[in-house]
């Protein structure tokens, strides 16, 4: 039922050892808690090294967590329990960003779309045929497309095959990792529209991982911003774009160029210094403070908590919600 919690993460963590012999570890996901309601779309945004891809892999069981709990449909998830993993696999699907790499080049589109059904135990050939035809039509692939191999399809058509594979076995949750970032702007619109249509037709819940604000804009109900393994802001999509709370989110949105030269000249762009870098050298206090133009002494010493700073809106910043669009602290 819509509105009921489908996915719940509580203080989930995952570290990786660096392979450079330094013995240091990267805290890729460092204590993430969030809930996702049925038929809701949560976007996770952030730049390289933010941990957003690892978070998606933890949820889909591709990477085990070191600590914390994940519940799906009210049940605790343990991917190492093979019986439970077998039962969960069809319900939680993933759309990958590397389209060519995730499709076997020797298979036709038809075989690629039918494969998950067979893997998940649909033995009746007529049932497989019926469902493949239904999903192909939903994603906009013709009978002719279904006879082709990945290299004989365009980028947009291949992405349709990837999406068809993810939804064919009627999942409940689809984790989409950069589903349109490799596509041109005109194809991107078509795929975003398709994802929106499928969500309604199949009653899907999405977790969308992206650095691309256009996809967030078009698909998300809520947005989580990640920075070096932490969620630093969690907001509904309208508030996220209209009045972002965390200095990082404010800077991130101001860095996205808009297709209007006059607006570009008027705009106050906040150009952050440096880069997030790797999560193996995390600053004391607030992790964002070395790049934050609003950083004060407290930010260098005390790590802020993710707290509710406005109804339903959370930010991990000592000064939120009193940060202006130019990153000055306003009347606190």
């Amino acid at each position, binding site marked *: 039922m819509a509105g009921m919690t489908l996915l719940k993460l509580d203080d989930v963590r995952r570290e990786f050892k660096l392979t450079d012999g330094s013995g240091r570890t990267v805290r890729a996901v460092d204590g993430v808690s969030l809930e996702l309601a049925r038929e809701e779309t949560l976007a996770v945004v952030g*730049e*390289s090294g933010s941990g957003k891809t690892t978070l998606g892999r933890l949820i889909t069981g591709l990477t085990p967590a070191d600590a914390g709990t994940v519940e799906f449909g009210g049940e605790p998830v343990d991917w190492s329990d093979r019986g439970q993993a077998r039962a969960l696999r069809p319900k939680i699907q993933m759309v990958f960003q590397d389209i060519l790499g995730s499709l076997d080049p020797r298979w036709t589109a038809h075989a690629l779309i039918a494969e998950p059904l067979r893997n998940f135990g649909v033995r009746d050939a007529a049932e497989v045929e019926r469902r493949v035809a239904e999903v192909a039509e939903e994603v906009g692939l013709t009978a002719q497309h279904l006879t082709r191999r990945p290299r004989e399809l*365009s*980028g*947009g058509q291949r992405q349709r095959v990837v999406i068809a594979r993810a939804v064919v076995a009627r999942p409940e949750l689809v984790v989409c990792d950069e589903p349109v970032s490799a596509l*041109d*702007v*005109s*194809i*991107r*619109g*078509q795929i*975003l*529209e398709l994802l*929106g249509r499928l969500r309604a037709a199949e009653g899907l819940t999405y977790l969308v991982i992206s*650095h691309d*604000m*256009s996809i967030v*804009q*078009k698909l998300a109900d809520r947005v989580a911003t990640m920075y070096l393994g932490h969620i630093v802001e969690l907001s509904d*999509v*309208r508030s996220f*774009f*209209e009045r972002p709370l965390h200095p990082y989110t404010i*800077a*991130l949105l101001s*860095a*996205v*160029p*808009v*297709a*209007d*030269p*006059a*607006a*570009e000249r008027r705009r106050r*762009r906040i*150009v*952050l*210094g440096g*880069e*997030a*870098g790797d999560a193996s050298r995390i600053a004391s206090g607030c992790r964002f403070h070395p790049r934050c133009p609003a950083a004060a002494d407290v930010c260098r010493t005390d790590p802020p908590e993710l707290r509710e700073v406005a109804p339903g809106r959370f930010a991990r910043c000592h000064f939120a919600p009193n940060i202006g669009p130019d990153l000055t602290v306003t009347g606190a």
Partner: protein
Amino acid sequence: MSAAPLLEVSGLSTEIEVPGGSIRPVDDVSLRIDRGETVCLVGESGCGKTILSRSLLMALPETARITGGAVRLEGDDITTMSPGALRAVRGARVGVVPQDPMTAFDPLFRVGDQIVEAIRAHEDVSWEAAAERMIAALGDVGLPDPVRVARALPSQLSGGMNQRALIAMALAADPVLLLADEPTTALDVTVQAQVLELLAHVQSERGLAVLLITHDMGVAAMVADRIVVMYAGRVVEEGPVDEVFSAPRHPYTAGLIASARASLELDHPYRWIAGAPPDLQALPPGCPFAPRCEFAREECAAGMPAMVEHGRGRVACVLDDEERPWLA
């Protein structure tokens, strides 16, 4: 601004051999870049942007050749130059900023040494003199600790730092033109903002001309003085940035701008251009955009529309302004 353009491309065509024939990813392209000007070349993948930029330096794959036209840099035709003369153009008069900063340097050599070698490839200077210039160049692009960066291997630097170092290398021989093919596509958006700011800074500081190739209309709006739009190997529209964005004349340009804008407006519905760019081996007769164009009529399929001048721009489209509803 001098009357002779810095770079003048006229009627350039490049063909590539493919199984079963040849394609022409650059088809009768003409454009000019003036001193101190930033021109953005825009279009979707496969429209010919990258083959055009490689044609400008005669740096084409073996299966490709230029079949017509000329590329004049300060009056010298690059297409007829000897290999020795070409070496003096590439990396010296024309600096190149590559697409993927993490793979552009040789991973086995220190960044500073590679820049020194690049300087010495074009100028007869001692290693020490070149090294001094290299350190200064790294400082000029805003790298905080040039000596440390110079000693680092590319893998020890972030994407943004590598891209700054590559820009330093491209600038080290004091070029007149900088060619940048999607220089920020592989970077995070906050780092993209830094690199674009740096490019704008060095451009105004040195009076450099920049040809920036991008698929991102937002990036083009941010940095361009002039926009050149390519489709299926042809220039379909060209003009000053404000005119092209406020009153695009080609339906393809209008579609690119509308989909880029709609993608960032909260209450805007989805917008996109139907269909996909054509297969260059099976181009439709006439205007290559006609099969995707909602305004196409019989004459569009009959022949390639002539380039029509209007104001300071030009467009290859048969419509009149009254027939362009997006201008209303």
